[in-house]
């Protein structure tokens, strides 16, 4: 083209995924400089290179230029093609780190994405696959991403060894639905799953008991599945954890989770403690409230911005730093500015104890359509 495509420039390795996601969707090239330039281990790390290779396979015509030192990255996105792919995720991060990227991009591919990812399914830092399955997938469905959206956990693998495997299938969409979701409703029940790999089968039960102990004081309708895996399905490392979700009368899902640390960290946690912590985290999440959980805020914001050229409204809890950065990036890439309104208690909810103040996000979508889709 006659005008040089304006390259957006950023610095530092943080928020790499946000930049890559938005760059791929908007088609704007991005240049990231000074990636850990003054670190002992400078440049892109193994897991980030792994992410780039995943993106390369998900797209066609993507040009990735990494400087010799690895501290500068120039990413020129191509067209999202999707299709079937298998990917070995790096063991430095869990599958969730990669799957979050795929989830954002998959609806806009040329072909429906069905991918098999192997690596760590559950670790203590990134959102686990249970979390993404329980929270982000229902959120995508609200935005009109088809019915055959599927996430299957074939094998679980705890950190550091990994060995887990998941299957993710996402249909392609042409346009996203505009969402007006401002009524969080009331929490009606709590569901969840407690899992353990390569440890005593008692562990999940102990997790459930302790979590219930905390939550029973608030609501009686609690049902937590236990999932103890053996043999080939249990990956390579011992580990356990619990994922809890609170469902509201208006189908809002707020969730929290807690996972054991890898064995090498020399910090043994007893499951009772972990269960309690997960329950507390869930209550904290309920306290934050809103229609979207704190770890899925970015996804809701992205899909709102990509929606049709209508006004969409979603009630969030307090914004997390990650979401704030994402909103800034959305403004850079998609030129969508959100209207942020603080919602304190008012009207009917006057005098109710419903946790912290909420944030109402309003935006006009860009009318993003799936450009790579084929018609016959």
């Amino acid at each position, binding site marked *: *083209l*006659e*005008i040089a495509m304006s390259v957006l420039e950023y610095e*530092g*390795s943080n928020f*790499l995924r946000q930049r890559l996601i938005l760059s791929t969707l908007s*088609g704007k090239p991005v240049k990231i400089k000074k990636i*850990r330039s*003054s*670190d*002992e*281990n400078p440049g892109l790390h193994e897991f980030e290179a792994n992410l780039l290779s995943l993106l390369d396979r998900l797209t*066609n015509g993507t040009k990735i230029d990494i400087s010799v030192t690895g501290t500068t990255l120039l990413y020129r996105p191509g*067209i999202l093609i999707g299709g079937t792919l298998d990917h070995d995720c790096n063991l430095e991060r869990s599958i969730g780190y990669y799957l979050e990227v795929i989830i954002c991009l998959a609806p806009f591919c040329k072909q429906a994405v069905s991918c098999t990812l192997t690596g760590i399914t559950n670790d203590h*830092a*990134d959102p686990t696959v249970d979390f993404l399955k329980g929270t982000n997938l229902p959120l995508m469905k609200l935005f009109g991403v088809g019915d055959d959206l599927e996430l299957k956990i074939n094998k679980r693998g705890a950190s550091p060894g990994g060995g887990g495997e998941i299957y993710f299938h996402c249909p392609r969409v042409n346009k996203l639905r*505009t969402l*007006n979701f401002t009524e969080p409703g*009331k929490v*009606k029940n709590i569901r969840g799953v407690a899992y353990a790999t390569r440890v005593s089968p008692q562990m999940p039960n102990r997790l459930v008991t302790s979590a219930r102990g905390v939550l029973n004081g608030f*609501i009686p309708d609690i049902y937590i599945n236990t999932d103890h895996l053996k043999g080939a399905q249990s990956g390579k490392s011992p580990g356990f954890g619990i994922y809890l979700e609170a469902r509201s009368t208006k189908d809002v899902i707020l969730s929290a989770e807690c996972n054991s*640390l890898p064995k090498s*960290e020399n*910090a043994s*946690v007893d499951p009772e*403690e972990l269960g309690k*912590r997960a329950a*507390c985290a869930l209550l*904290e999440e*309920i*306290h934050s*409230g809103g229609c979207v959980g*704190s*770890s899925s805020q*970015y996804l809701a914001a992205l899909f709102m911005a990509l929606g049709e*050229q*209508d*006004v969409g409204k979603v009630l969030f809890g307090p*914004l*997390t*730093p*990650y979401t*704030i950065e994402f909103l*800034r990036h959305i403004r850079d*890439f998609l030129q969508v500015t*959100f209207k*942020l*309104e*603080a919602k304190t208690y008012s009207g*009917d*909810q006057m005098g*109710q*104890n*419903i946790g*912290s103040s909420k*944030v109402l996000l309003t935006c*006009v979508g860009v*009318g*993003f359509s799936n450009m790579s889709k084929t018609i*016959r």
Partner: protein
Amino acid sequence: MDTDAPAKAHRVRRAGRKAEKRQKNSEDADTKQRNPKAFAIQSTNKLNRAFRRAQDVKARKHHIPVVDRTPQEPPPIVVAIVGPPKVGKTTLLNGILKNYTRQKVSEIKGPVTLVSGKHRRLTLIECNNDLTSMIDIAKVADLILLMIDASFGFEMETFEFLNICQVHGFPKVMGILTHLDSFKQQKTLKKTKKALKHRFWTELYQGAKLFYLSGMVFGEYQRTEVRNLCRFISVMKFRPLTWRSTHSYVFADRMEDITDPETLRVEPTCNRNISIYGYVRGTHLKPSTAVHIPGAGDYRLHNVSFLHDPCPLPDRGDKKQRRSLDVRERVMYAPMSGVGGIVYDKDAVYIDVDGSNNTAESQQQNVPETILKSSIIDSSKTIDSKMEESKVSLFTGDEPLSTEQAESMINMKMPEEEVVHQEDGRVRRRAVFHDNDGDGREDSGIDDSDDEDSDESDDEFYPQDEAQDADNQDEEMDMETETIEQEDEDSDEDVVEGSGLNWKIDLREKAEKAFIERQSSSVNLQRLVYGAVQEEEEESGEEGEEELRGGLFKVTSNEDETDKKRKRNNRECSRDLSKMIRDWIDDHEARESITDCFVTGNWGEGEDAKTLLDQDDEIYGDFEDLETGDVVKGNDSKTTNQNEDEKEDEIFDAHESKKDRESRMREKRMERKRKLKEAFDRNYDVDKIGGASGGGESTLFDNVKRELNEQARLNREEFENMDETTRVQYEGFRPGMYVRLELRGIPAEMVQQFEPHYPLIVGGVSSTEENMGFLRTRVKRHRWYKRILKTRDPLIVSIGWRRYQTLPMYYMEDHNLRQRMLKYTPEHMHCWALFYGPITPQGTGFLAVQSISGATPDFRISATGTVLESDCSTQLVKKLKLVGYPYKIYRNTCFIKGMFNSPLEVAKFEGASIRSVSGIRGHVKKAITNGGKEQGPSGAFRAMFEDKLLMSDVVFCRTWYPVQVPKMYIVVSNLMINKKDSWQAMKTVGQLRFEQNLKVPVNEDSLYKPIVRPEGRQFSSLVIPRALQKELPFKSKPKYLRGKNQTKHDKLMKKAVVREPKDRQIAALMNALRTMDKNKKQTKKLERKKQMAEHKKLLEKQVVKDQWRHKEAKKKIYKALAKSEKKKSKVSEE
């Protein structure tokens, strides 16, 4: 589209013709009642069919519902007057202008905007007869007045234009027949009208509107006719077109050159900065989007600002409902024609004194004026923007702030950190040259965070609503992320048990509370997220200071490293790890704060179970149980409510006056009534809300429509009461706004050669559409185009906003979706085409022309099509046959040479299927290498066949060779030249050959030559073994036909037939009969023979008899003769 005022109620006629008619009709209805049998259901099938038909008819009327995105004040409707030359376009335009504005314009250049009604404005433009103009007009016009000279009939341009319209979304088209006064005879006029109308209908749709302008009066069209036409225009309804409703565009009505006059003086042909004015149309225009100007190319908007509307709709605040427009409200705005007088700019108002100054000629004269304008524009920003900036700079962190607060804060914070960093820094500086020392840093990291926590406690003292503070807080929160992560890695128990770090948790909790509190006010939130970003400036400063030592290695000074810098390289995680988790087990205050988040907690006033029950009682109230006859009283909620109210009233009485009380009571009553009504509507009146057809249950269609209406309402109301600048920030520039677009780096020719007659469009494109790729399209050569199209011949494509020349490659899809290249487009079929160009949404229509310059009597549009897919690579292939010759033949194994050049090539084709000319199939086995037993030339290989080859055989390998689609993309920049209709495109090879009088090069190999067979070759006949013959199907079995000298018995196969007894009897009987018959025939024959012989004998006898009789008769005669002669002689003698 228009917000209609509530229609006046219909008044029913009580007397006269209509009343009588109604009376009669109602009587007819009575007949149905009188004679119900005649109208009873006769046949269920018939009824079924009738019902289905009715439903079909109903469903066919539905359009797919779309969200109505038209803004409150829609942009003017673009009405284009199109037609061949000398058809009366300018006359009509003048007539319309005169009809609306009562003004006469001497010379019209470019678009004219005027107010046509209380809710509608029009932008009128005349389209000249140039192909590019027609294409541009078809892209922006909402309504097209297609003028046709009736005395001449349709011209090629009309059909071309209709085809152009078709691919670009088909705006509304209204035909206008002119020159009707040239017909002298009424009959021919009538006939011509009818013929033209029907042709027009086949081109558009049956019943398309065709207007007749009967003739001219004093060089103008008749006023009544023009007025009728204008009425049609003003009631016309439009359906949104896909491309335009997804792209923003500006149809420019003014363009100014705002280049710095000094640079212009130094270099007159320098790239210009221009500003373009017009209404935003389509969708919201975002600032700094990429735009395409058809005829000029792609640019990026440098600046967009909205201006005062130069042609506003009449003020709706006016209470008086007037039917017609005031004279003052009939505004006309045509800056390029010099009409409208006042020109608004970003920060000034110009009053045009001497008309137009836009033409290329007058450009030079008006330089001083331009200088004035541009200097104003360049030097000053709006006061608003200045104010904003000043605010921003006030809160920017890295500037030394004047406020004491900020200064003290920085002073308190920085030194502590610097100490830490200095230690840290030295270690690090060494680390650049030697090994890294990670541990030290890790430790210090933790120290760092401790320091920071104490900092935060200090921060608490500062006023929290300042953006600066908020931003810092934000960053510090991120620092926390790091800290907690480290803690997490150390031990998880710390967080919860926290025996030793209790004080710290408390601090963090405070910090978090503060962070969340900041989010409790909307202003702060907005600033927290989108507020001043100061990082970049700081960074650039630091980079400058970096010094180079030893050439290769850079010395980085860690002393400068701030929190932000470290935050930049933090571990990325979507989960907020910094989040403090309270102790929900023992902290009662915390537990209390979320009790109502659960269904078990208190519900809101309106949704409380008790209130809902009460409400139900109010609605359903008292009812009588019909079975038992009991009357159930609703529990006296009303009365109790009233009682309560009264009680309340008593309480309030003391404080307020009677009037206040009454108003309060009224409000309360109204509220209650509203709620009751809502509840009633929910239960009964579902259909009415969505405006669905009355009666019956709501259908899917109605539901969708209702949802979309709701969405449209939300779109309208969400930003309604906001001030324009903030609104623009959220929405972008909404359609209907009058904007000024600033573009930089426009070639000088664009300004120098500017021609207001040519439409200037600024079309916004999304960021994806800026990228280049290959477009896969379905294309069909236009049936009126004289030639077929050749692959890789340049073609000018008009697609979306763009118009460019590219090299399409045509192909057909095989049954297995293989894309097989075609050399030419098929004559009457669709085919596919691949070409290089900007990525375009699928489903976009396009048209292709070979050339836009030069006049040709033929149809100029060569092809039309749609985009199917955009991609970054292609799968186009063509067939390639590799040929080889056997040089050694065993039984089924065979060695072949000449197909490949090296063993490597063979290796690539291992397993590929090959075939001989005689049809023997086989496949490639392995290349011949030097070490092997078998020798051969390089590239020879061993192959296996299903049968033995002959040395004379030729072996083929059929392969598919990928064809590259050439990456050529040339924007048609016809606005840059003087003669805009003669832009010279890249020529086709054929055209060049024709011009230079060159012959088509002939490849000798491609010519057919007589087949020369080697002498003396004997082809022995094919022998099929008997065993194989048995296996073969009948079709393939050799057929032996009877030769000439073979008897029937030789050929027929002898079969032993064993008959059934009955058959045998029959056969015996038949045989006997046959024998008897035979015998009979035999005897008959013999008899006949005998008879014949007898008859013969008889005949012979007869013959003998006859002969004898003849003899006797002769004898007698001769005797007599002799006697008489004797007598005579005697007499003579005597």
